[in-house]
């Protein structure tokens, strides 16, 4: 039995998936291993909810990443990790692209060359600048306090840029929802749970956009609101991730 089957059990509780007689549009439940304090994990949960893919989640500890058990499911120890039936992959970029392609909704990746490059630029800003800086603030919850002064100095310029960008249009790269929105939603959600929330409050465009993200119904037209699955402070303290369950097919 691999780590997925121990922690992100695919059994839905109604017997083997798809055998309960209910019409399900996805053949297998996705299994995800990650952590509630990790923005990369939250991006995978958001895309699954947006694209109508059921996902069972299991939490990892930092010490798991180098364990032989985890390397059996993610050979280079990259997290988060995903399993769908006999298929394994790891890393938020691989997982979000996979779920976007497998999901029920239309792809959220732009085909236009300029928008595709712009999306990648904002995804990189999220992963390379915002994500690591926000971890210092999330340390207030996990008890691994980081240097929030340095993190704030790192975050302010990119948040100013994002605030200006969101003043131009409804979503991060324009009129359409994209991967850039997924990435920044996860970041801003985590930041909003910490003392860094004032950096969102003081930027009205980010604040309004985040409210729109929280109110938004899923990309595939189901009533599920993807943000409702993001962890609370208590969830992070308890190292608990929410599953993605689709009720209205």
């Amino acid at each position, binding site marked *: 039995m691999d780590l997925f089957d121990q922690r992100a059990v695919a059994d839905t509780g109604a017997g083997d998936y798809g055998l309960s007689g209910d019409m399900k549009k996805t053949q297998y439940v996705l299994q995800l291993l990650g952590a509630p304090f990790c923005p990369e994990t939250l991006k995978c949960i958001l895309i699954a909810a947006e694209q109508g893919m059921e996902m069972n989640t299991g939490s990892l500890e930092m010490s798991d990443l180098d364990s032989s058990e985890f390397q059996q499911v993610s050979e280079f120890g990259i997290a988060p990790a995903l399993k769908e039936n006999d298929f394994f*992959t790891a*890393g938020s970029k*691989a997982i979000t692209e996979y779920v976007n392609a497998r999901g029920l909704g239309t792809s959220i990746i732009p085909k236009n060359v300029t*928008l595709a490059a712009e*999306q990648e630029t904002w995804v990189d800003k999220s992963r390379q600048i915002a994500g690591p800086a926000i971890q210092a603030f999330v340390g207030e919850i996990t008890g691994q306090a980081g240097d929030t002064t340095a993190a704030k100095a790192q975050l302010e310029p990119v948040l100013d840029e994002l605030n200006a960008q969101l003043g131009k249009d409804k979503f991060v790269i324009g009129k359409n929802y994209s991967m850039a929105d997924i990435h920044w939603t996860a970041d801003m959600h985590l930041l909003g749970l910490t003392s860094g929330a004032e950096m969102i409050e003081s930027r009205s465009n980010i604040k309004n956009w985040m409210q729109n993200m929280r109110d938004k119904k899923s990309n595939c037209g189901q009533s599920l609101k993807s943000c409702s699955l993001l962890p609370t402070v208590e969830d992070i303290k308890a190292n608990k991730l929410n599953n993605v369950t689709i009720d209205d097919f």
Partner: protein
Amino acid sequence: MGLFGFGEKKEKPAAASKDDKISLSGPANAASMKCIMTAGVRGVAMDVNLSGGDAVTMTHGPITVVGENAIEAYLDIKGKGMPLKPKKARHLADQYHWIEASNQLLDTETKVEQVMSRMDQLLGEQEFLVGPLTLADSVVAGSVLALKKQGKAPASLGNVDAWLTRVEAKIPDSLRAGFMSHIN
């Protein structure tokens, strides 16, 4: 604005014209090499200047793109024929898994031997990293060539060397010598 938005002027993103040349500048590091390999495999001609700077930057007419991932996405779509980015979900995931291994591990000189040994094993069974040629091949080749240039790649991985030759062979003859002169 008319009914259902008819008559509304649709704002288009900035676009380069056919006559605009693509230029790449930045430090002579793995990120730049990945962009050069991607341009090469996609048959995109561009001027290259690796004399320094903080981050790899591409300009194309009114468009400026900063950062390897964004530039690779741009070049892939701009290139000739079908993009390297696969449509099949599993290939897509495998492509980005290798790109993450390249960005997070090879470029930071972490687990180099483990990653490249796995590549060698896989490339003994299949022609390219994912199966068909994908963006993973041009990107990871850039990382491996950067490691080789610094003498930090493990020696005697015959399947990796043969794969590098196959990827280089995808660069059109008219571009190969010029592009590879920035890498080797």
